């Protein structure tokens, strides 16, 4: 087991380095001078040269990359051009806000998805199966930015039950877990939960159907175990995979929150990315993408390891 863990970690290291390299290159594939958003349009050639050397853009690319990685390893991802604050702090604050809706969305998606998937897999080819499968196809086919708009139209503009945008009456800085604040969470989290719900439902349906078709289930029934007892065995067999799927979904939600956060003006990583892109704040763009992608890699690793711990039959190569 320890050997497996080490191997898995060793395999993740080059991936993380590759991810860092891609993030580093983002600034260099961007058209125009990397300093274009800081320098005034009429800057002299002398000033431009001085700034290039201050930011280190005059050094060879490999050296720039190594310096950037070195600083990143020490938690320094540079300074945001728009706010002049350290990128790391800005991103981590936003990650916290995004995690609130992403975790809530994963919980909703996992519970509803497992329920639909279980019913569909258990009553295979019944009307309930067809309905649950339809729900899961719709879940993964809904453009979530549109779903968010429709939910705002229905629940905010028409019924006026829930607030449309923002993260609380006083902004995101004084978040509290009371209704005045939590009501702002509901629409973004529900919007976000549709994709994990569809994917979990689809996976659980296949898992339950596969497990029920196995011989040990016939054995359990032959020994006179009640249907509830059989189901408990089925759940135990399906749980590790279903949990792994939802764990990975959390990573997708965190990385893909930009559209939903734009619709709901939710002050998370997506909102930050949106700002970074449209203010040409390249250090902020680079830093937030690096943190989100590394989080995704680590989450993948964690899910893989946990799955092996939960289900020792799987020895992954």
């Amino acid at each position, binding site marked *: 087991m320890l050997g497996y863990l080490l191997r898995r970690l060793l395999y993740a290291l*080059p*991936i993380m380095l*590759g*991810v860092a*390299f*891609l*993030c580093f290159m*983002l*600034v260099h*594939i*961007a*058209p125009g001078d990397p300093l274009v958003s800081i320098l005034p349009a009429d800057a002299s050639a002398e000033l431009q040269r001085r700034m290039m050397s201050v930011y280190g853009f005059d050094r060879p690319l490999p050296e720039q990359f190594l310096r950037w990685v070195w600083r990143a390893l020490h938690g320094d991802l540079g300074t945001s051009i728009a706010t002049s604050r350290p990128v790391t702090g800005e991103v981590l604050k936003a990650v916290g806000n995004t995690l609130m809706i992403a975790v809530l969305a994963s919980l909703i998606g996992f519970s509803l998805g497992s329920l639909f998937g279980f019913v569909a897999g258990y009553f295979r080819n019944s009307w309930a199966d067809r309905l649950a499968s339809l729900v899961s*196809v*719709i879940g*993964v*086919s*809904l*453009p*979530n*930015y*549109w779903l968010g*708009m*429709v939910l*705002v*139209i229905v629940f905010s*503009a*028409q019924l006026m039950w829930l607030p449309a945008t923002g993260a609380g009456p006083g902004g995101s800085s004084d978040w509290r877990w009371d209704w005045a604040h939590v009501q702002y969470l509901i629409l973004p989290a529900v919007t976000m939960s549709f994709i994990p719900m569809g994917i979990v439902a689809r996976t659980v349906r*296949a898992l339950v159907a596969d497990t029920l078709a*196995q*011989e040990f289930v016939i054995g359990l029934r032959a020994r006179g175990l009640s249907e509830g007892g059989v189901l408990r065995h089925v759940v135990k067999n399906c749980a590790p995979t279903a949990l792994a799927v939802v764990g990975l979904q959390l*990573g*997708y939600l*965190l*990385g*893909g929150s*930009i*559209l939903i956060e*734009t*619709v709901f003006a939710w002050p998370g990583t997506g909102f930050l*990315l*949106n700002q*970074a*892109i*449209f203010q040409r704040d*390249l250090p902020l*763009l680079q830093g937030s*993408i690096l943190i*989100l*992608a590394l989080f*995704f*890699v680590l989450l*993948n690793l964690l899910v893989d390891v946990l799955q092996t711990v939960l289900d020792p039959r799987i020895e992954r190569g």
Partner: protein
Amino acid sequence: MTAAIQTSLTPAAPGVVRSRSHLANVLHRLVRNPLAMVSASLILLLILMAVFAPWIMPHDPFATSMLKRLKPIGTPGLPLGGDELGRDLLSRLILGARLSLFMGIAPVILAFVLGGTLGIVAGYAGGWLNTVIMRCIDVLYAFPSVLLAIALSGALGAGITNALVSLTIVFVPQIARIAESVTTAVRRSDYVDAARASGASALLIVRKHVLGNVIGPIFVYATSLISVSMILASGLSFLGLGVKPPEPEWGLMLNTLRTAIYSQPWVAALPGLLIFVTSVSFNMLADGLRSAMEVKQ
């Protein structure tokens, strides 16, 4: 246990377009799937709408009018209402099918060719070439797809070409991975060994044995990617990273109409409905195709 033995005995990829009869079987099964047929007809309808847009549009989709701004659905002369600049929404939705479908489908076709080639080369060559190609693919695969699309098009800047490039890069690794694993399995099979022993060249083996096995699974996968691609492409335009105004594209229209959700909510929601219908149709067609080809997910 028996299941494991059975799967190891069946050939690597059961969904193979090997001969005309197999293709005919697949089509036969597909035609008898009502959900897939409804989806296919809807897609055909949308494509026809896009192709013949200039002849079916009732009005000029670019003509603005202050008097027709944000008119509700069913206004005389504006069957689906007017947008925020008083342009006829119906005409814009019809013409918008062109860019929206193109932006959704083109990256998948490009990724199908590119990712398929990379995967087959990596799988057939093996060795260091495989390592180099697949480790690069792994790095791209390590990003959540939305994040990668946003990162690339955010850095490259708005525009149709940049959005196409970004989306293609997002889908290449997913297709390459499938192509690589199928190719590797085929390369290690006995009949390929036999073909090689009897003097067949690498190119001939790839064309005769590998392609036939690889194309089925990646075609099914690519069909299901179109749904994701439609949502992502329109999403990029929705953020202002894809198609630029005043061109009509559903995601962009959804964005510019967003300010109208309090005055004309249902007019504002219409472009998104079309994105949804297109995406759900491609998804159901892909599901039908998958079960018709008996390709396991």
